[in-house]
């Protein structure tokens, strides 16, 4: 599973790529651990961009639940964004849409979480287009 991060002001956007099955869930957990546990990094929120995730298993959902608990324990927030249709249905069926903040896009998530992060995101997107 590929995994990358980008930081916009006080928010980190994490982007896993590929199916999050039982094996990839362990990789995701290892990748997220430093982000959700580091209380000195000044990260106010973590947004998981799931646009490139076609499937997530129960074990993958558990990783998100554990990450959310760790973030909330230190007063930070976590959200997921840009779910593919199948993943969106899995969130609904598992009731994870009731325990995690779900947004239609990364932009929507940043808009809700941090004006500074949204401004940084739009500046980055604008320079990328230019």
């Amino acid at each position, binding site marked *: 599973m590929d995994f990358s991060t980008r930081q916009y002001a006080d928010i980190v956007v994490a982007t896993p790529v590929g199916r999050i099955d*039982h094996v990839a*869930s*362990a990789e995701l957990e290892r990748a997220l651990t430093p982000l959700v546990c580091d209380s000195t990094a000044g990260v106010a929120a973590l947004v998981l961009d799931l646009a490139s995730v076609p*499937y997530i*298993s*129960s*074990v993958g*959902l*558990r990783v998100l*639940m554990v990450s959310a608990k760790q973030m909330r324990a230190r007063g930070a927030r976590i959200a997921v964004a840009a779910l593919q249709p*199948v993943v969106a*249905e*899995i969130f*609904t*069926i*598992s*009731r*994870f849409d*009731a*325990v995690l903040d779900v947004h239609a896009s990364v932009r929507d998530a940043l808009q809700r979480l941090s004006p500074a992060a949204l401004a940084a995101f739009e500046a980055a997107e604008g320079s990328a287009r230019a």
Partner: protein
Amino acid sequence: MKRIRFWGTRGSLPVALTATDVRRRLVAALRGASGRTFDSDLDIERYVDGLPFELAGTYGGHSPCVEIETGGPDYVVCDLGSGVRPFGEAAIARHGAARPQTYHVFLSHVHWDHIMGLPFFTPAYIPGNRVRIYGGHADLEFALRRQMDRPSFPVDFSFLRANIEFMRLEPGVRHDVAGMTVTAKLQRHAGDSYGYRFEANDKTVIYTTDSEHKLGNTVESEGFVEFFRDADVVIFDAMYSLADAISVKADWGHSSNVVAVELCQLAKVRHLCLFHHEPASDDVALSKLLADTRRLEEITRTGDSMHVSAAYDGMEIAL
């Protein structure tokens, strides 16, 4: 094995429809029939058959009791929840009280909802009947006797005049019972519980209730996949949503429809039957659970399709 018959499907506590529930259904059914004419009872039956299950039927309220019809002379049931009362009545109605029968009972565990029916299981009071009770726990007999002690119940266990025997099963060992091969498996639940794999005549049925699955424990998950492997039917505790099962209800000893689908797909199960329904869920909620689970099976399918049902009191599955 010929058939599975559900006498009790509700978890934790029996429930019943209220008068208000029945009235609401009657109003809805009559509203749907407005302007229609029925020329015969058959027309009425057809109309009722076309109504949604949560309007024309109910998942029912007895706590767990599942009969496996083996095709042989003996009876086989899993658990002694309140559903064992109507099961016993049906057995007596079939044979008469004077003809001794043998009943093989497999107990998942001895929590109250799984044993509360024994004091109302009439065949246990009839001399000549034989009741063989199997389980993995060392304290089966103690638990069944204690629930009938004063002041909890007015009729002592000693009034059960059938020949009652207790048989402890070692997990992982194949046992021959009533023409079947039966294997028990230890499950995660407060005080432990046991699932059962029944095999006979190229048919396999799994009864796995009151079993929590810890996500991320690969060895444990693979053990269950092997236990379920190629089963015709898996009767699975799907009491909670996945989100609840791993958060506010973690360590409560139950599982979810999502884990049910995942394990059964990996095991190439043919029919997943959702069981041990949450008592707080009404029929509308359980019908939605069934629809959601069927949809999940569809969108995550990688091989053959798997049939998904939700057990209700009175449901039968032909094998």
